[in-house]
């Protein structure tokens, strides 16, 4: 009975049933099968109402929507062109670094694609990068900074595994930077291949571009100084960003007419945020039922009986985590899977810090793989493209990430370089 229902739901999803309805139906069916009250789905959803981690999302999204409406992408293209236009793949490099950076402090909750994607997409396409490359880059960069401090995913792993957080932050630096470098090289290569036009470096043009774009450029600087300087929280930074952008575009540039455009901007933002968070709400109910039925634990029990060597274990671990990452959201995956893998990994002599990096690296890839890849959903919504197209576009990036995953998994030294001896 259950396999038939799952097949039917997958089919309905493929035919275009909204994802949150699919997940909701799955939750309702699972509660029925497990003889639970469907109200438990709402109990999980209600937890969203107490979560402070989501507050920044609508405000950053609003800033992104308002910036896009106010012509910031054009001003920034001009500025970045003046700065990096002479470099092959220059803008792609800027995009990657900015995304990694932004994800590190926005917690890989999809804010990156919402806040930066809408800005970077038109910039990259204007510059002559292939559409597929742009979409792939922006889709897969939404989780790029996962290994850099103060990423929420690392924090969560530290709590659950009982590992020192500072050691985890140190451990994440080299693997995280390695991935960034690998993707940068690919972008430069593609920049040359697509023969993205380079422009000569000119000081007067740079000055003019700076004068036009200085207000926009101050924004990321302000966010970074504000948050890392400890002046404001992430939520407060989001609110300041939203207010700043609104004032900038309506009073200084006068590109946005508040009386006519404010309501549509608010509406577009809510629609965007609502269609994403409603999926999270539905997925929380279903994830809780998986935990309740101890499904992940049963999967692992199987692994325990079929594996003997560390190499075999690591390989299976990678496969297992990739599947988990494809089906579960990263935070519940960490909470549920870590305590189960930890003793197994200890048996095979794998350091808990290294294990953490392996887990996060796997789940980072899982962000952009169907069926549940939050990056795919958000990018699909943000860019108005079908999921499958985005997945195909992200494939070259995922391939690079897989190579990177193998390097990181089988070279513990990359994560444990800070250890003495």
């Amino acid at each position, binding site marked *: 009975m259950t396999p038939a229902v799952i097949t039917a739901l997958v089919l309905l999803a493929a*035919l275009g049933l909204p994802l949150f309805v699919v997940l909701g139906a799955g939750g309702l069916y699972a509660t029925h099968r497990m003889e639970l009250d469907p109200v438990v789905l709402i109990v999980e959803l209600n937890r969203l109402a107490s979560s402070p981690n989501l507050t920044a999302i609508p405000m950053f999204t609003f800033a992104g929507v308002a910036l896009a409406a106010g012509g910031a992408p054009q001003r920034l293209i001009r500025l970045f062109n003046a700065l990096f236009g002479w470099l092959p793949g220059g803008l792609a490099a800027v995009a990657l670094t900015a995304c990694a950076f932004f994800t590190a402090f926005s917690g890989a909750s999809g804010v990156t694609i919402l806040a930066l994607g809408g800005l970077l997409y038109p910039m990259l396409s204007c510059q002559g990068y292939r559409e597929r490359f742009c979409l792939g880059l922006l889709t897969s960069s939404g989780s790029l900074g996962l290994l850099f401090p103060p990423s929420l995913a690392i924090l969560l792993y530290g709590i659950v595994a009982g590992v020192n957080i500072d050691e985890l932050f140190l451990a994440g630096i080299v693997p995280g930077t390695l991935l960034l470098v690998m993707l940068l090289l690919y972008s430069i290569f593609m920049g040359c291949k697509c023969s993205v036009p380079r422009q000569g470096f000119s000081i007067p043009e740079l000055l003019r571009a700076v004068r036009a774009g200085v207000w926009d450029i101050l924004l990321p600087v302000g966010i970074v100084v504000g948050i890392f300087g400890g002046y404001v929280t992430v939520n407060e930074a989001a609110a300041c960003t939203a207010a700043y952008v609104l004032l900038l575009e309506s009073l200084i540039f006068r590109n946005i007419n508040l009386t006519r455009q404010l309501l549509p901007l608010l509406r577009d933002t809510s629609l965007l945020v609502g269609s994403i968070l409603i999926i999270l709400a539905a997925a929380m109910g279903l994830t809780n039922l998986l935990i309740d039925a101890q499904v992940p634990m049963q999967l692992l029990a199987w692994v325990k009986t079929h594996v003997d060597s560390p190499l075999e274990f690591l390989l299976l671990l990678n496969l297992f985590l990739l599947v988990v990452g494809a089906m579960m959201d990263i935070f519940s995956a960490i909470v549920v899977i870590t305590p189960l893998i930890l003793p197994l990994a200890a048996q095979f002599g794998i350091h808990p810090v290294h294990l953490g990096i392996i887990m996060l690296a796997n789940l980072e890839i899982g962000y952009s793989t169907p069926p549940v890849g939050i990056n795919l959903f958000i990018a699909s919504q943000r860019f108005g493209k079908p999921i499958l197209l985005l997945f195909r576009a992200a494939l070259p990036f995922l391939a690079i990430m897989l190579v990177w995953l193998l390097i990181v998994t089988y070279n513990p030294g990359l994560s444990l370089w800070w250890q003495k001896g």
Partner: protein
Amino acid sequence: MTEALQRLRRLLVGFETGMAGLSLLLLVLLTLGQIIARNLFDTGLPAADSLTRYLVLYITFFGAALAADGDRHIKIDVVCAWLASPWRSRLFRPLQALGALICLLLFQAALRFWRDEWQYAADHERWQVLLNLVIPVGFGLLCLHFLLGLLLGERRTEPRL
């Protein structure tokens, strides 16, 4: 009949746009207010933190209702890419019906959840339970939009962002 339904639709969309927009504006203003209170007066606005988190829920549900109206919810419509457009149109009503059914069931569960919360809440928490009404209301609105979609059929949707 169709005219009346369209009027109802516009009424709902107007209400949802207003609520979502208001919640988003209030979210920004409250957070800014918190910054000022914290840094200038060494204090916090009481209940503002809890309120901001509820506002996210409001934006989510009213935004989701707006997305349902425009048929702009996130989908993994892999098959649709290969389907001819008349087939896609034929699928529209059955899918809307299914969406309405699921949202109705979730609406029922949410309503029971809310009633129990109200019953068990301590007096000082009542205002939060009132704010929690957004969960049943949200699922109710989603259900209504799917029903309207079922009755009115596929409309030309507005261009995406």
